[in-house]
C-alpha cells in the first residue's frame, strides 16, 4: 500500500476557502481539488418539494459547502495539512463548521510521489 493519504476537508464557511488554500500553499501543499457541495438538508429543502417546509431549519447555514480533496505523500504531510487548515479555519468541533478526515490510498495512477 502507498504511504500517500487522501485528505478530505468539507468547509461550510466557504468565504474562508481562499485563506485555507493560501495557507496550504505556503506550507508547500500544492495539489488539491476543490468541489462545490450542498449539505443533505439544504439539498432536500431546495430540491424535493415535500421537504420545502423545512427550509427554515437550515436558515443561517451556508447554502453551499466546499470540499477540498488533496492527496499528500505521507502521514507527516497529512498532519501538517490538517494543522494548517485548522490554524486558519478554526475549530471543526463547533457546529456548522465542517469536517476533516483522511483515508489511506491503495493502488493509484498519476500520482507523482
Amino acid at each position: 500500500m502507498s504511504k500517500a493519504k487522501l485528505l478530505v476537508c468539507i468547509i461550510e464557511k466557504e468565504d474562508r476557502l481562499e485563506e485555507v488554500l493560501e495557507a496550504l500553499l505556503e506550507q508547500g501543499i500544492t495539489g488539491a481539488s476543490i468541489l462545490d457541495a450542498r449539505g443533505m438538508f439544504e439539498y432536500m429543502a431546495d430540491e424535493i418539494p415535500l421537504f420545502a417546509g423545512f427550509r427554515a431549519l437550515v436558515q443561517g447555514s451556508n447554502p453551499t459547502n466546499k470540499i477540498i480533496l488533496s492527496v499528500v505523500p505521507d502521514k507527516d504531510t497529512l498532519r501538517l495539512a490538517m494543522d494548517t487548515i485548522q490554524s486558519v479555519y478554526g475549530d471543526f468541533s463547533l457546529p456548522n463548521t465542517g469536517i476533516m478526515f483522511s483515508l489511506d490510498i491503495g493502488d493509484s495512477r498519476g500520482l507523482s510521489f
Partner: protein
Amino acid sequence: MKLDLFIQKEHIRFRFDAADKTDFFKKMVKDIVSVYPDFEEERLLELFYLREETMSTGIGNGIAIPHVMYEKCKNHEIFVYRLAKAIDFAALDKKPVELVFAMIGAPSPSNIVNLQILAKLALMMKHPDFLDTLLAAENRDSLYEALIRYE
C-alpha cells in the same frame, strides 16, 4: 422505521367528504381538534395553509402529505384521510388527490423524527404496487393493515 408507532387505526378516516382543498383543510383540522381538544383550530389551520403556500404537499399519484410542527403537539401524529371524491390539491403532477396523510409533529431542535416520518411516507408512496393496495383498500381496516405491514 415502521409507521405503526405513529399511525392509529382510530385516526384513519374513510370516505372523507371535501368539496375542494380549502374545504378539506377546514374539515381535517376540525376533525383533528375533535380528537385533541387542546389543539387550537385556527392556529392549526394557519400552519397548514402556511405550509401549502410554500409549495403544495400533493406529491403526486393521488397522494398528499401535509405536515406541520405544532407547539402543542407532544408526539408525532398522523391522520389518514381516504377521500370520498378526489380533489384538486395543486399537486406536482396535477393529478387530483385521493389519499391524504396529515402529519403534526412535535417541534424539536433538529426535527429529525418529523423528517424521518416524512421520508418514510414519501418512500412508501414511490412503490406502485403498494400505492395500488392503499388506493384499493375498501375500508379502514384494510387500509390500516396495509400501512402497518409495510416495512
